[in-house]
């Protein structure tokens, strides 16, 4: 018995120039916020951008983007919804307000299904918001998606960085390209993260402030893009991608 879906995935992504998984060893560090804001920033720079929420059990990009009804269309495949200039797919379109309790094998299957059936078309960037940790989803995107790059998010905490370090080591071992590491929710001066990232042999991309305005702008992309957090992320994005 052969699963036919795997063989089509790289064709589906064949016209996507850069695939970037936003990931971390730790939960709650701002992956979804960074992924969503980064996608918006790049789209504002006139790039063709897709955003895929790959956190099936705890999706949150739809809340950050204020998306209510972003159902993909069906037409010989799944055609992403258009929101704020992005091509957008979240499993929320299918699970709606319900909890979706999935085991690891289910996550793998659902990921495979969506990668095999979403027609992204031509994109400059596909940003993938990953679930936390070294999970089935992480191993699957590495296994299934040729040419995927990782952008790693950490907080200033040594607790976060401990898990990030393990993730970086794993990615290096698997020869998966890493764009670099951003330090999110920075509240005071410290050289701990930049130093450790560089010592581990990776690029430190910069720091993003803890910004109390972020919480109030969730669901409103115009105000979100005006926060100090987003302005700083835009600078980092332009340094990396332009």
């Amino acid at each position, binding site marked *: *018995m*052969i*699963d*036919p*879906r*795997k*063989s*089509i995935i790289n*064709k589906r992504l064949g016209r996507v120039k850069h695939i970037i998984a936003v990931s971390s060893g730790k939960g709650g560090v701002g992956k979804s916020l960074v992924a969503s804001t980064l996608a918006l920033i790049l789209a504002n720079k006139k790039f063709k951008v897709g955003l895929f929420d790959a956190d*099936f059990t705890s999706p949150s990009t739809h809340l950050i983007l204020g998306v209510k009804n972003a159902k993909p269309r*069906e*037409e*010989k*495949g*799944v055609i992403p919804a258009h929101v704020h200039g992005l091509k957008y797919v979240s*499993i929320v379109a*299918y*699970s*709606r307000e*319900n*909890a*979706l*309790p*999935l*085991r690891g094998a*289910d*996550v793998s*299957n*659902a990921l495979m*299904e*969506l990668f*095999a*059936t979403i*027609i992204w078309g031509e994109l400059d960037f596909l940003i993938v918001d990953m679930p936390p940790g070294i999970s089935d989803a992480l191993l699957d995107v590495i296994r299934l998606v040729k040419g995927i790059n990782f952008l790693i998010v950490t907080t200033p905490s040594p607790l976060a960085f401990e898990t990030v370090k393990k993730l970086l080591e794993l990615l290096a071992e698997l020869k998966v390209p890493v764009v670099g590491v951003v330090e999110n929710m920075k509240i005071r001066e410290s050289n701990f993260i930049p130093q450790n990232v560089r010592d581990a042999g990776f690029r430190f991309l910069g720091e993003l402030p803890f910004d109390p305005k972020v919480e109030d702008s969730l669901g409103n992309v115009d105000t979100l893009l005006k926060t100090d957090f987003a302005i700083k992320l835009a600078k980092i994005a332009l340094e990396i991608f332009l």
Partner: protein
Amino acid sequence: MHEWALAEAIISSVSQIAEKEGLKEVREVKIKVGELQQVEVEILEFALSELKMDKLKNAKFFIEAVRAELKCRVCEHKWSFSRNRLDKESAEAIHFVPETVHAYIKCPRCGSPDFEILQGRGVWLESVKGVK
């Protein structure tokens, strides 16, 4: 129209197998379609016939439906999936991503959403035959 996307995957997978096994021509492809995904077999057949080319031009596709069997991990109850109990939108969600069944169905005996899909989830290739 999810069927077209799946048909494309089948064609691409069969072509890869033909390549790997050095087949000059593919004659027969056996496919299993799980009832959980509610694939419309006629549309799948039509899509396959439209998409087949090169080595697959003369291939015959045999499609067999497989009942979807679910088993509760909590109380071990087994039952089969039936779309009749679902509203249109939930059934459609399961069609696109069968795993969303965990959002809409619970074990009929104990009410748990923690069940296993024993068989009949989606589309599988059972065999590919041809001439070398």
